[in-house]
């Protein structure tokens, strides 16, 4: 903002303390000085306090043997030989597993409930509203404790396990499902599956080009289904069915074979999905409502039927509104998975900030690493989100 002054006149004189430039510099220097002072004091105190308590500092502990067991390990881990670093990766993978599955379940549930809230069916919309209003207003921690202590821990003992057809056992020690054993030649099925995915992507582009040229539509869903599911099944049969299952055998006190799913994992997955779904439902509802009624009416007047209207007109416009808050709900779910510490699921916080911190006492390093993990995931996601946003943002005149 510059003001053109007539030639020869000098700018009005102001006292130096009223000069915006000097003021702004003074404020900033003062702020930096205050923050610098606090950081310096904190660091100085931390060093003295750590020295007095004889706590080592630095990241040397990363290579030390952990010496504790973890209930659920996705990668090789043993208490005798694995390091704290290994324990960190085990915890991180457990966090990502529960968050990833939670996101899938919460999205499906959330979309169903969000659309149900807009249903013309009175009973359906009222039931969805009831769900959202109840679940949203009860703390997640309480829901997790309820699922874990009041539901899953109240299941029958090992010897009276519920048996679900298909070889699944449920009791208060967890859920036991058959474990698939892949015989020789199964890799052909895997290859066929990935080829099927590639093929359906190629088909999608071909079909779109053809539709743009000729206006003829291809049965996309059926072809995709055939390529992704059908072809691998055919290959599986041709290869002589190299797939068998190891069924869990229920004993009085122990179960052998099968895959064990911890009750802590199940409780966390239930709690996170159900809680986050209520927020996603609201996001979806707001998104659909944001598409003005005129859009639907215009589509109808062009002769589109309700389903293509939804698919081609309403959903693409609603997604623009839905996706940013949806991503922040996903991040919330990831961050909320740290509540695992309350029910003892071995996630990053429980393993690392809990056990490792207690064993090593290196609070600063351990908490800093944990925060850095969450922070980098969050920041990466918001960066991608901003890129996406700028790509789909409405370009106005």
């Amino acid at each position, binding site marked *: 903002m510059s003001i053109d002054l007539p030639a020869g006149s000098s700018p009005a004189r102001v006292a130096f303390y009223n000069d915006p430039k000097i003021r*702004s510099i003074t*404020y*900033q220097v003062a*702020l*930096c000085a205050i*923050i610098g002072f606090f950081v310096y*004091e*904190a660091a100085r*105190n*931390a060093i*003295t*306090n*750590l020295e*007095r308590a004889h706590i080592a500092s630095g990241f040397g502990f990363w290579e030390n043997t952990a010496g504790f067991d973890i209930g659920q390990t996705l990668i090789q881990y043993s208490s005798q030989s694995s390091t704290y670093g290994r324990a960190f990766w085990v915890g991180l993978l457990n966090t990502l597993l529960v968050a990833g599955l939670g996101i899938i379940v919460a999205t499906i549930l959330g979309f169903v409930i969000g659309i149900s809230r807009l*249903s*013309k*069916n*009175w*009973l*359906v919309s009222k*039931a969805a509203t009831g769900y959202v*209003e*109840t679940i*949203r*207003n*009860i*703390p*997640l*921690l*309480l829901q997790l*404790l*309820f699922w874990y*202590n*009041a539901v899953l821990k*109240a299941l029958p003992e090992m010897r009276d396990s519920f048996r679900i057809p298909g070889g699944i056992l449920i009791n208060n020690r967890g859920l036991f499902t058959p474990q698939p054993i892949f015989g020789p030649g199964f890799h052909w099925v895997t290859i066929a599956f990935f080829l099927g995915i590639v093929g359906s992507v190629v088909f999608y582009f071909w079909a779109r080009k053809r539709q743009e040229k000729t206006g003829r539509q291809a049965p996309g869903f059926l072809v995709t289904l055939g390529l992704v599911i059908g072809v691998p099944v055919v290959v599986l049969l041709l290869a002589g069915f190299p797939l068998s299952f190891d069924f869990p055998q229920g004993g009085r006190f122990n179960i052998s074979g099968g895959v064990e799913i911890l009750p802590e994992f199940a409780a966390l997955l239930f709690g996170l999905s159900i809680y986050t779904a209520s927020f996603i439902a609201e996001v979806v509802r707001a998104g659909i409502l944001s598409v003005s009624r005129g859009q639907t009416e215009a589509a109808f007047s062009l002769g589109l039927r309700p389903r293509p209207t939804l698919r081609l007109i309403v959903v693409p416009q609603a997604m623009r509104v839905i996706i940013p808050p949806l991503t922040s709900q996903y991040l919330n779910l990831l*961050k*909320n998975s*740290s*509540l695992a*510490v*309350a029910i003892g699921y071995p996630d990053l*916080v429980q393993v690392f*900030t809990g056990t490792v*911190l207690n064993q090593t006492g290196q*609070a*600063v390093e351990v*908490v800093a690493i*944990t*925060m850095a993990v*969450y*922070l980098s995931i*969050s*920041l990466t996601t*918001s960066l991608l989100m901003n890129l996406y946003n700028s790509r789909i943002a409405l370009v106005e005149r």
Partner: protein
Amino acid sequence: MTMAEGDLAVAEIKFVRGATIDAQPPPAAMRGAVGWLWENLLSTKFNIILTILIALLAFWIIPDLVKFLLIDAVWTGVDRDACREIVVHHPVGACWPFVFERWPYFVYGSYPISERWRVDVFFVMLAIGVVWLLWLHAPRRDVGMAYFFVVLPISSFILLTGWKAIGLMPVDTSLWGGILVTIVVASVGIIFSLPIGIMLGLGRRSHMPAVRLFSVIFIEFVRGVPLVTVLFMASVMLPLFVPEQYSPDKLLRALVGIALFASAYMAEVVRAGLQAIPKGQFEGAMAVGLGYSQMMRLIVLPQALKITIPNIVNTYIGLFKDTTLVFIVGIFDFLQTVEVSRIDPKWATPVTSTTGYAVAAMFYLVFCYAMSRYARATEARLAKAERR
């Protein structure tokens, strides 16, 4: 064809009706209760299936819920025997005597029994403050503001922690618990997060690079990590950062963690409000010669905060639910007192956990639902003012 020609053409055709006929009532099947049912529940095949499914779900859940909470519930008793199926020989629902006996613990924690009146006074003072601020026609709401943000925090602090000079016995915060702690943590979060959040929100939109950078780093950092880790940091790292003799007590650590966490979220809410204010308002304020603080205080913030009230309340709802996480720091908030009581051998039965959780759920549900209703009513009120 012009208008006149058209009229002429119609007038000449005898079989065309000259006057409109009266509207007929809709067919019986589309009126009243039947019509409503038809349209809302049974309009298509898919709808009929949905209706039946939801009805089945309701018939499955609601009777069981009523049975558990009321019909089969036990209302009197002195210990766990009253609520055990093996002892009383009939199905047992909720174990209410457990809640009745533990209620004082749920409310006050281990606060000394002779001093509990102080907690009651605190609750009453807080209730007065809340009503004063929220009731639109209350007299002197400016005084109410000062009362809520200045008088109430100071007097509550003196009242609850004690002050020997005026004869109030000091009560260590490790004895506090239950609903008292939940309310204290939530109130401190609410009272501190708004001003800090406004400052950070303004800082993020400031023209001074150092201020903006600091605000952005703080906000993004806190919003990027789970509250659990912030509380861990407050609990294990804060004592390291201060000289040993000033090491803060456990409750204070949790309060610092919660207040900082809520401030970062509040800052984003405030920023959204600031962005919604048209640039003309800023320029207008500057044109009439207002300085930065006057512009913000008199022109921008009143408008920005008004439109963000619903979002502020939503942040408060989140904060209220997040108070349950202070268990990380070893503090006995309401949920934690329930958690401790439910495994007490005196009351250990298969139904105790569920009863305890049901009470906790109702407590949080009532508070959060009331807040969300308030937010929605405010939204509706503001929308009405906007429409004129």
